[in-house]
């Protein structure tokens, strides 16, 4: 087998491979360091962080679905100050690479405040700005479903920080291309998608929504075809790098995402079912590349556009 190159360049930083555990499925990293050396990862996107600490939604926050799951955690996190004072130092002990800082907010000032603080941290390599979390009432949803507000948040964050800014998009929109273009116009260094699809289950015993929050975000293999389509549409719409995600659970899925236009690929729900998922996907890449005649993984980025 010819030597395989799996490295990619995400907004100016070289990643050993395109596999990135997605925010909300990898905590602040150290839980997974108990399972394997997380330095095999290109990077990972840490738990969505907000200006203030949040408990999030009441439980139940999780429901099973066919080939997937719903979550309505509601952005539980200790707040940006504690993330910087406690989580990042703890992470430093088990991860020597740059981490992707995932940020949520409820107004422009929130985003700017939190992004600025995190951008000052040496450990942070990229800011991933979540304008799409579907779980919080009056929250991120509105920004990600309108091109104007997607532009506004992108512009505001870009004006405030110099590190690469990746805007994470909501799939719950009529036209993903329009939103992607708005982020590009706002100066985004990249976009990532898809966040979860808004879904629901009903508890037939109580005849009420199963999740305390009513609705929740669908993730897992079930959403992969929708994610792939949106990555493909977004990649056709913009020139900035696209980080693909949504139901990815195998090395082959990573390659499909890259053919659809993704420069890097986030893996979400798979981590929750199999803590070794990302390590195994990374290890599986060379064989899968061989199967499809790929020696340098960069060559397939956007091949199906």
């Amino acid at each position, binding site marked *: 087998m010819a030597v395989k190159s799996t490295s990619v360049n995400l907004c100016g930083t070289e990643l050993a491979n395109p596999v990135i555990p997605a925010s909300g499925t990898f905590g602040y990293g150290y839980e997974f360091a108990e399972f394997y050396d997380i330095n095999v990862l290109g990077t990972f996107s840490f738990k969505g962080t907000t200006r203030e600490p949040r408990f999030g939604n009441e439980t139940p*926050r999780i429901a099973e679905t066919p080939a997937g799951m719903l979550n309505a955690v509601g952005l539980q996190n200790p707040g940006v100050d504690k993330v910087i004072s406690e989580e990042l130092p703890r992470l430093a002990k088990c991860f020597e690479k740059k981490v992707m800082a995932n940020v949520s907010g409820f107004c422009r000032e929130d985003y700017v405040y939190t992004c600025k603080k995190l951008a000052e941290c040496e450990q942070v390599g990229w800011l991933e700005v979540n304008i799409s979390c579907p779980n919080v009432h009056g929250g991120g949803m509105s920004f990600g479903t309108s091109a104007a507000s997607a532009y506004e948040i992108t512009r505001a964050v870009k004006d405030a920080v110099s590190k690469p800014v990746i805007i994470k998009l909501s799939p719950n929109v009529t036209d993903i291309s329009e939103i992607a273009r708005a982020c590009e116009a706002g100066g985004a260094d990249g976009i990532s998608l898809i966040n979860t699809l808004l879904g629901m289950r009903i508890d037939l015993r109580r005849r009420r929504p199963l999740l305390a929050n009513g609705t929740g975000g669908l993730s897992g293999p079930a959403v992969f075809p929708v994610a792939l389509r949106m990555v493909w549409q977004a990649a056709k719409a913009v020139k900035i790098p696209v980080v693909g995600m949504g139901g990815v659970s195998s090395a082959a899925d990573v390659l499909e995402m890259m053919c659809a236009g993704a420069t890097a690929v986030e893996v979400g729900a798979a981590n929750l079912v199999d803590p070794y998922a990302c390590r195994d996907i990374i290890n599986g890449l060379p064989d899968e590349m061989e199967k499809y005649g790929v020696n340098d993984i960069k060559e397939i980025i956007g091949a199906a556009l």
Partner: protein
Amino acid sequence: MKQALFEITENKKIADNVFLMRLAGDTDAITRPGQFVNVKIGGLFLRRPISVCDSEPGLLTLIYKTVGGGTKRLSEMQPGEKADILTGLGNGYDVSLSGDTPLLVGGGVGVPPLYKLAKVLISQGKHVKVITGFNTAAEAFFTKEFRALGAEVFVATADGSEGIKGFVTDALSAAGEYGYFYACGPEPMLKALYRATKTSGQFSFEERMGCGFGACMGCSCRTVTGYKRICREGPVLCKEEILWR
């Protein structure tokens, strides 16, 4: 925490909708009674958390109730089949606080983790009393197993078909004195017990989980000492830190 492949050696019905499964595999990560495992079941996305009933080096015993599609499939698995299991999850019970006369209280499928707990406490020379509660006699299990360990056992059934008629709290007076308690069962039972007990004790909670090992924040709860993840800082909480919702 450890992921391992276990081989099923036995899988039998022991009461209405209740099954006992014995498995062979690496149990090294299980360090305390009251911990749980998370079992991958074919065709289902999320693992299913199940409390450890008993574990010895290389041997794992689980008792589970068939409540939905997942546990039904689990009940159909045959000896010889393999199961992918995450073991050693959760904090488990702190046995150092038991005192000499601990009372163990379990309701339904809250009973199994008390078995390993009783085993450990009795091996430490403690005088162990156990109250088990069920809806009806046909759903009761493990009375003689607890007695075989040397525990004093009191059974309560909601319909009175076995033992004391009523809930586990109705069996407290029959059980008499105790210096500390350990409980596991549905939340309403735990709440009633919280009110009915005078001593300190530990409660094991249930919640719908995503991962079972602290990554997804799916099972968080509020406590006196801050937010805790049932799967990680739980499932066992001390009486003093509980904030009922």
